[in-house]
């Protein structure tokens, strides 16, 4: 049996992160505390190189919505003692673009196969709409939608599409007969 080589593993993670320009990679439980910690980490980092205010706001906004989606919609969400929620998932933030001037946020979480068609239809609907269409959908959802028990309003994904002006780049990877892995990549470009 091959001996577990942590040195190789740590070094390869390090190279993977640098090579992909990932500034933060997290896999595990996503809670409100984690959301606050990651957003303030990102804000401090962006402050350190005097990132443009609008860019900072957009990154913050997308991070919050992505993290709250993970904490509330992953298939294994649990209710915490202090009434909060925790869902498991992977959260990555990295830099992209020719001069690494843009950001992207990648998330992944396990969902039930039975939830895939509805989510996919929702994502496709968002991706088929233009600026005005998204604005109308957001308004409609605010007026007609109700806040779920977990405080979800069904607005997060629409808002991400509006704020970034980019299509939602998603995929579903089938794990087995019951579960799939849902990935979402959001790009925040300097325009």
């Amino acid at each position: 049996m091959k001996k577990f080589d942590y040195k190789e593993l740590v070094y390869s993670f390090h190279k993977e992160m640098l090579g992909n320009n990932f500034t933060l990679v997290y896999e595990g439980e996503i809670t409100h505390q984690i959301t606050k910690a990651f957003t303030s980490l990102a804000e401090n980092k962006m402050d350190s190189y005097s990132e443009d205010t609008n860019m900072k706001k957009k990154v913050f906004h997308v991070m919050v919505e992505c993290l709250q989606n993970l904490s509330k919609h992953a298939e294994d969400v649990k209710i915490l003692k202090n009434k909060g929620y925790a869902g498991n998932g992977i959260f990555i933030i990295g830099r992209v673009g020719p001069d690494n001037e843009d950001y992207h946020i990648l998330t992944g979480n396990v969902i039930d196969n039975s939830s895939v068609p509805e989510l996919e239809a929702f994502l496709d609907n968002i991706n088929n709409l233009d600026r005005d269409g998204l604005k109308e959908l957001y308004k409609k959802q605010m007026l007609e939608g109700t806040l779920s028990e977990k405080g979800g309003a069904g607005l997060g994904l629409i808002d991400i599409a509006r704020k970034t002006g980019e299509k939602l780049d998603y995929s579903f990877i089938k794990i087995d007969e019951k579960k799939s892995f849902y990935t979402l990549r959001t790009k925040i470009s300097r325009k």
Partner: protein
Amino acid sequence: MKPIKIRGTEDTPDVILDATKGLIEFSGRSLPEDVLSFYAPVLRWLEDYIKSPNSRSEVIFKLDYFNTASSKIILDILIYFEHLSNEGKDVIVKWFYHKDDEDMADAGVEYFEIVNIPYEMHSY
């Protein structure tokens, strides 16, 4: 009615609800862990307030940031005051946005496309 004053935190806004002054104000950031429980006392207070409002109500939003779940609550709050205004009561909503924050200005404009209520936009 007892006034409510909630001191803001990094994820919840400062809230002032003062019936004697007719002042309703939200400022700071709104991304509470549990939106429903944070805003429940606020909405209860507003429900009572609109039954016997001040002769003039001034509703101030001066937010740096709000998440999508809060955006739904803000609409609910505005709708309370739309009802008051429709009943002929004197209501003014003041929407403040940072001069560099186009998204916050747009958000205000969008609310006033949905809700029919006297309003003012103020940059700071």
